[in-house]
């Protein structure tokens, strides 16, 4: 069985896509934050059973809001086979922020470019192939309300589930020399700890530690020896002093 999770900014048509995929017909309101609890459904495509989980709509994945933390913990700890990032095609710039965060988490990503009809109606042109090349993951245009593109989306989910995280070719945000040096120093320490590397993407964990993310620190602390923890804190402190 393939485990897929849907994520995206609020009001991008995520619940509609969920209903289209799983054949549920729930009432879909237009209020922000419609999705507050975990909803799951199933479908069969090309003889593959797919379980789809609808995650809360979010702009970001910090530890400061409950819904964001729910979504993040699900992706990091449950490791679904495929993450479908639903993007509002008419609002690419804001939506791709979440996409970059997901790529940073080493998620096995499919980008669903929704509201494709509106993109055309506005006279905007999006080069889907180029976007897919730049992001390093499949990009599928859809129109959730008519169901257009949904077959392509299902195909992409099944296709990419088989190729788990083709790392390396993915787009990654470069934070500039100063920060990149700190990130690799912390990453080196993390790489020595199998308990952490089996659970978290190393680069992501290093970035979160440098951000001072309490939730991640708390979860990782148990796996760190006191000297490793001290080393990491030392790198963070020195880095902060240097940047100021």
């Amino acid at each position: 069985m393939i485990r897929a999770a849907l994520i995206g900014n609020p009001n991008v048509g995520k619940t509609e896509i969920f209903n289209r995929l799983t054949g549920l017909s729930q009432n879909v309101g237009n209020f922000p934050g419609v999705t507050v609890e975990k909803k799951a459904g199933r479908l069969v495509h090309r003889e593959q059973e797919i379980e789809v989980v609808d995650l809360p709509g979010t702009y970001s994945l910090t530890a400061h809001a409950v819904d964001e933390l729910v979504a993040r913990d699900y992706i990091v700890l449950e490791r679904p086979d495929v993450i479908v990032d639903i993007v509002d095609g008419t609002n690419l710039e804001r939506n791709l922020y979440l996409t970059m965060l997901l790529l940073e988490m080493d998620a096995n990503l499919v980008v669903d470019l929704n509201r494709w009809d509106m993109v055309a109606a506005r006279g905007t042109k999006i080069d889907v192939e180029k976007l897919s090349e730049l992001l390093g993951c499949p990009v599928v245009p859809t129109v959730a309300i008519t169901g257009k593109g949904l077959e392509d989306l299902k195909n992409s989910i099944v296709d990419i589930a088989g190729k788990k995280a083709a790392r390396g070719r993915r787009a990654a945000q470069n934070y500039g020399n100063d920060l990149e040096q700190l990130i690799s120093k912390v990453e080196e320490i993390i790489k020595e700890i199998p308990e952490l590397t089996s659970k978290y993407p190393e680069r992501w964990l290093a970035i979160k530690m440098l951000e001072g993310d309490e939730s991640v620190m708390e979860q990782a602390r148990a796996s760190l020896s006191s000297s490793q923890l001290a080393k990491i804190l030392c790198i963070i402190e020195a880095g902060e002093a240097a940047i100021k």
Partner: protein
Amino acid sequence: MSILKRLDELVPGQGGRIASISPCGNLRRRLMEMGLVIGSELMVIRVAPAGDPVEVLLRGYSLALRKNEAKQLILEVDAA
């Protein structure tokens, strides 16, 4: 020549580039996540009575801000 103005001092149709964002912590992070970063351009679309909230256009979408959030955003505005 450009001058510095607080976002809540602008009228609809006026806009500028963000020069500084004074809140720190969660509010700052939130604003930045929504695309309000130093250097980004925005324009005021409309202002509710009493100036709260303020609707701005940035990066091709509109965003409503509370007055006390708008007060904390300093913009570089081209002096006409």
